[in-house]
């Protein structure tokens, strides 16, 4: 009984509750918004969450990076991100090249008024039927970590306007080990 009260007060959670909390759109770490013809879904990955996702790898201590996944899909259900609004094969190859490499330069985190560039970028290309594509991103950690950060996507593919998405990192529970 005391243990339960203690756990509740220290805000620790078991694995499934923790994953549910982190992925819940209400808690500020998982945000979905429409941007022009696309839907952008951003998930901040706290260290415990990342460890749960990649448990086969040794847990890193004092990781100097902050990790996110960004998933983008066209609003039209049957169109793939790579093929959407594409006229010919040359344009398709350009789009593929853009998302494989150059898109990294159009991403940054704004924290405490400072822009942090994307230093780790991975374009996931699973063989599946989904029309969305996911990018695993890492940005440097700010020396004075803030509760509120903003992911800025300044991609011509998504439209002329930058896509700003605020992530609120307050009250993140700890994972009970």
């Amino acid at each position: 009984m005391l243990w339960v009260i203690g756990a509740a007060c220290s805000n620790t959670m078991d694995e499934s509750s923790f994953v549910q909390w982190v992925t819940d759109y209400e808690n500020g770490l998982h945000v979905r918004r429409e941007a022009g013809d696309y839907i952008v879904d951003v998930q901040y990955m706290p260290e415990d969450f990342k460890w749960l996702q990649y448990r086969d790898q040794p847990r890193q201590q004092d990781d100097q990076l902050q990790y996110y996944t960004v998933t983008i899909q066209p609003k039209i259900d049957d169109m793939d991100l790579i093929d959407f609004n594409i006229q010919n094969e040359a344009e398709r190859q350009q789009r593929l090249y853009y998302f494989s490499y150059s898109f990294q330069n159009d991403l940054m985190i704004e924290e405490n008024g400072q822009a942090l560039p994307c230093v780790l970028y991975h374009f996931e290309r699973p063989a599946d039927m989904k029309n969305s594509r996911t990018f695993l991103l890492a940005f440097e950690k700010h020396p004075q970590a803030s509760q509120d950060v903003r992911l800025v996507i300044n991609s011509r593919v998504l439209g002329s306007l930058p896509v700003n998405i605020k992530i609120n990192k307050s009250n993140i529970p700890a994972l009970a080990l």
Partner: protein
Amino acid sequence: MNKIIGTLCFFLAATMAVVGYLLLKNKQGKHGYVVNEIVFEKFAGKIKLEDALREVETKHRNALDSLESAVASGTTESVAVYQHLREQYAQDEQRLSAQYTEDIWKEINQQIVAFGKEQGYDFIYGATGNGSLMYGSEAFDISEEVVDYINAKYEGEK
């Protein structure tokens, strides 16, 4: 006896009147209108893209200015290059301006739909100044509310 029947009739009529009013009010729904021009002008994204367009225009103007001395020397070739570039830049600026305007309206329309759903509106009209909405009481003008909402969304708020 007659007095009791009279009182009952009065209460019945009053109840029907209230129910009727509520039903009518519910059927009419929640309405509001925005002045499109105000929303467009005050949208933070528009101000940002306006700056971006101005930057491109300045870059083009500087490039043309640097060519002007060559044009002044009067060779036919340099004049042709200058004219070609000037036309090219003007076309680029027009295309960019049209693209920016389209993207700004796409975002505004999208966010007004989200605003309407979140705030429980049944109708939000757009007053364009060309007669699509001839009159609306100021009490129904939600332009500023919509501007605040759209700008908060633009800045990345939930």
